[in-house]
Each structure stands twice: as C-alpha cells, then as structure tokens.
C-alpha cells in the first residue's frame, strides 16, 4: 500500500509485484500527484515503465532493466545503480542516476535527458534517436552504435568502436577514445559546441573547460552502399 504524507507519497516495493508498483505509479500520475518515492526497489526490472503522465519519481536504491522505459513527461531520480537499458525508448522528461548504469543506457531514446552520474557500460546511447545522454564517468565499447539523432556527452573515456555505424547526431568525449567505429570521425570543436557543453554540464556543477572535449560525428562515407566501401567496415 502507498502511504501519503504531506508533499510526499511513499511506495514500499518490498511486498508488491512489479505490476502493482507500476499500476500505483500510473494511478498516482493520473491523480496529478506531483512526486512519489519508491523504497526498497532491490534491483527490480521494469520499474516506472510506460508512464506517460507528468510525475516525479524518486527511487531509493538500485534498479534492474528498463527503468523508465517507454515513458514520457516524467522525471526519475535513481539513488543507486541501474541495470540494462535505463530509459529505453524514453520520449521526454529527465532520468538522473546517482550511480552507475549497465549496458545500453538510453537505448533508442527519442527525447528528454538521461544523466548517469557515474559510469555507463557497453553500448551506451545505442541507436539513440534524439535524446540527450550525459555520462560523467566512462562509457564502454560500442557506445552510440547506430546512433541516428541526439547528443551524447561523456566526461570520461570511451571504449572501442565509439559511434560505429552512426547516421547522425553528435558525441562529445572529455577523456580518451579507445577507437572509433565504422563511419565515425573527429571534427574540431567550435564555440557553439563549448557553449552547449557548458550549458548542459553546469547544471551538474561540472565545468566543461576542465576537460579536453573531442567531438565525434558521422563521416557519411557509408550513407550509400557502394562497391568499394568494404575497407571502411
């Protein structure tokens, strides 16, 4: 059962099924309850999935796969680590993770912003379709694979094959890049890029100037399937 105290609605996940938790969240959102706190998530998968009405959800502890997936208009803060695909297919709003994220953070996310205040695993921003993902630590191999639109900001290092098979969008990396994937290239930073980074990172009390940011975009060599492309991939 959820318990309402002034300004704060609490849901203890301990004895509830995922179905019951998500039903409560959807019901609270439809009642225009502004904020809700989930206690004892215990690494459970599929929390706050498919919620499309405005609500702020604070999750006190680690979560499993797909936290916040297929949602829009919501704000989620996770005080713990995340499993795979946090914010998968996210449409709008914010997800902030006070911890590390496993693989596929923000997979196919179409809008809104997903901040990982730690490290993210392999394939962060995979197939990104328009959202912004910020990782204050490192990202693993294959990050931004097949990215189509959007922006990825990584303050730390990026693993091998960054931005492999990218179509569009932009990636900024403050640390080292192990290697670029097929059809990705470095491009010089310009003033607008620094302004964008300053604007996005200052909210997190990070100064972009403390990092040697590099910009990665699509080289557009593989936009059309040609006979002599084979050496590029």
């Amino acid at each position, binding site marked *: 059962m959820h318990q309402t105290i002034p300004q704060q609605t609490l849901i203890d996940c301990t004895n509830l099924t*995922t*179905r019951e938790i*998500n*039903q409560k969240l959807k019901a609270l959102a439809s009642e225009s309850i502004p904020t809700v706190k989930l206690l004892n998530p215990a690494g459970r*998968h*599929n929390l706050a*999935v*498919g919620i*499309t009405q405005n609500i702020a959800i604070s999750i006190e502890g680690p979560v*499993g*796969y*797909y936290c916040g*997936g*297929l*949602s*829009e208009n919501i704000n989620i803060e996770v005080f713990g680590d995340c499993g*795979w*695909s946090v914010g*998968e*297919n996210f*449409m709008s709003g914010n997800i902030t993770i006070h911890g590390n994220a496993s693989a*596929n953070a923000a*997979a*196919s996310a*179409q809008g809104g912003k997903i901040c990982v205040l730690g490290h993210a695993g392999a*394939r962060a921003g*995979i*197939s990104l*379709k*328009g959202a912004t993902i910020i990782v204050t630590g490192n990202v693993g191999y294959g990050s931004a*694979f*097949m990215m*189509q*639109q959007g922006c990825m900001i990584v303050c730390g290092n990026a693993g091998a094959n960054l931005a492999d*098979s990218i*179509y*569009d969008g932009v990636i900024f990396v403050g640390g080292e890049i192990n290697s670029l994937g097929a059809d990705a290239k470095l491009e010089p930073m310009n003033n607008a890029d620094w302004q964008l980074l300053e604007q996005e990172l200052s909210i997190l009390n990070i100064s972009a100037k403390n990092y040697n940011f590099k910009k990665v975009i699509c080289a557009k060599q593989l*936009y*059309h*399937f*040609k*006979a*002599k492309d*084979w050496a590029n991939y």
Partner: protein
Amino acid sequence: MEREQVLKTSSTYTPEVIAAIQERAELGRYMIRGYGAFRNVPRFDDLVFLTTSLTRLPLEGYREKCTTKTLIGTRYAQRPMELDIPITIAGMSFGALSYNAKVALGRAATLLGTSTTTGDGGMLPAEREASSKLVYQCLPSRYGFNPTDLKKADAIEIVVGQGAKPGGGGLLLGQKVNKVVAGMRTLPEGVDQRSPCRHPDWIGPDDLRIKIEELREATDWEIPIYVKMGATRVKDDVKLAVKAGADAIVLDGMEGGTAATQSIFQEHTGIPTLPALVQAVEALQEIGVYGEVQLIISGGIRSGPDVAKALALGADAVSLGTATLIAMGCNKPVYIEDYHKLGTEPYHCHHCHTGMCPVGITTQDAELMQRLPVDEATTYVANYLQSLVMEIQSLARACGKSNVHNLEREDLVALTLEASAMAKLPLAGTDFIMGQS
C-alpha cells in the same frame, strides 16, 4: 537433312550463374534484391488431402457452415486477437511499400475481419485508421517505435528475424527514403537505411523475457505479444520464445519475401516453411503448450490449399506477405516499358529494392504510386483473401470438418520422399514414412 542447332547448357554454369558472376564482377559486391527465394524447395504442394469417401462423410460443399474463427494470444493477454479468418497480413513496412499499398492492405484486412501488421517504418496513421486489428512490430531498428503508438496497437510482434534473411538485416535504399519515410525513421533523407540484425537493448532469451515484461507493463497486460522468427533452429528457438513469455509464435520459412536483402540470404539460409511448421508444432507439444501458445506460419503461402495444409499440420493461422502484393498487381503485365527499364519482364520482377516498382506497390515515387488506386487495390486483396477462405472451407468440408481448425495430420499424405521426411507423413498409397518406417 538439315538439323537445327542444339544449344548446350552447362549444369554448373547455367545462364543464371553466368549472369550472377558477371554482375558481381561489375558491382564488386554481393547482389541485393527484393522478393524471396527463387530455388525450388519441398512445399505444401507436395502434400495432398485424403478427403472423404465411405469411411468418413463430407459436409455439403456449398451450403453447410464451416467456421473460420481464430483466436491468437490466449495465454496472458486480457484482449486476445479475435480473427474471423485464420489468415493474417504480414509485416511490410511503409517505406518498403507505398502509402497506397499499406492503406489498401489495412482496408482489405478489415473487410475480412483479420489483422494487418506494421513493419520497419513504424505505425502509419492512415494504416491504423484503415485496420480494425493492427499488429505493431517491435523491430531491431526501433524505427518509429514509441509508447503513443504502442497504446494504439491490438498486438505486439517482437521481430527476431525474417524468413528471407534470418540472421541478417535489410537495406532500404536511399531512393525510397523520402522526406516522410526519413521523418518516421528519424534518419537523414535519402540515405541507404540499414535495418539492424539484432535488437539494441537485449541479446538473448533471458533478456527477451524481461523485454516482454516491459512491453506488457507499458500496455497494462492487455494485448498479446507475438515473437516472430526466421526458421532456422526451429525447435530450440520456439521453446526459448515460449519460455520468454510469448503469447504466440510467428514462424517465417525461407520462402518468405523481403523488400531488399542479399540474394545469398534468400537462397542459402533458413529452412522451408513445411519442415519449419512441423518442427514448431513438435516443439510446442514437447513442452506442453500446444494450443496454449498459438502458432502463425508464414513464408511463401499462396493458396487455400497451402493454408488448409498448414492448419492440418498444426498451425493456428498463416500470415501472407508477397502473395497479397501479387494480388494487388505485383508483376502484372501492365506498364511493360517500365519493367523493361528495370531490365526485367512481368512475372520475373524482383526489383522492389529499386523503388521503381512499375505498378506502384514498392515505391515512394508519387507518380508511380498513383498507378495503385487504394480502392482498386483493396478490392483485389479482399477478393483474394475471400477466395482463400472459400478454398479452405471447401477442403475442410470435403474432409468432413465443420471448423477449419479441425483439419488434422491424418487428413494428409505426402507425394514425395522429401515431403514425407519433412512433414513426417506417409507417402501416398503406402504406410511408409521416410526416415521413420
């Protein structure tokens, strides 16, 4: 006596092989094309029905009722898919197909009380409007996949693979990626769009289980979730998909079509629809969910007898792709000059990938698309589906069944040793089952 010259043809270097070698020599890459496999494989044609005579009685072919109602997704969904006929329309994307073709498929399916399926391009609003029952595909690309359209769907189909290209992705060439198609897919206009071969956010069946739960949570456990696979290691794949929580399995044999992929995939990967179906039914029986998890079979199904034989072998429904396009005019002998411009002839065209479809089906060119009026295309597809239903009912009545789902393996025998082995049915006129007797 003057003798006419006899032209010798090598069985190794046939004209097709010579042309293929020379085409690759010019292109420097493998060949890409639409349609499906050209090679001959054992198929439903190699089976025949043992209808009735003295030991069983037929139903009156033109009068007595024969039910075709079909339910898909009865395992977990609160709203299973209720179909009037056991024939559905397979996923074909807006992008690969023209707007008119997608709308016509939707309207025809609605007229027959069955479902149509979205495809790689996401949910076209006009398609949703036209289709009373719409299956929303969750594809590896996630093009156009979003929670808003998800809530409008009547079922979700997680696409793991396709019969024409199991293990491979597709290629929508840039000439078909116009402004609208690019917008729906969040892509730059005019670029060659690769469909990925695997999902971005899950890899194996354990992940799929969690993915299915996510989709159920997002749709409040209301609608069924199908898992569609190209037929390869059928038994293991079907069992894993069931374990992951699928409400229904959609299995696509190697005769399945495509808008564009490597020709080598179409000819050299996957197994035919006939043995795929038999293995899938066995897999469901072995784990005790036959009847609980429904099976939709697809890949080169063209006629009422194909459908009836699939039902008799244990499918709950079939899914048609290429055949519905042919019904609306694909390969029709009209606009002959435009076939010639593509270097082909009617009945031989497989140039869906070029976007220059002479009959306006697999194109995004506004002028070509006008050659496919929606009303006319709707009528053709609806007529075709209706004729299939009548054929299935005729065969079922002749087998003494008042429900097409009562067709059974016992109603069939095989005409060839290959079909006997693959379908595990006796060779006609004998008790011999190839590989078992």
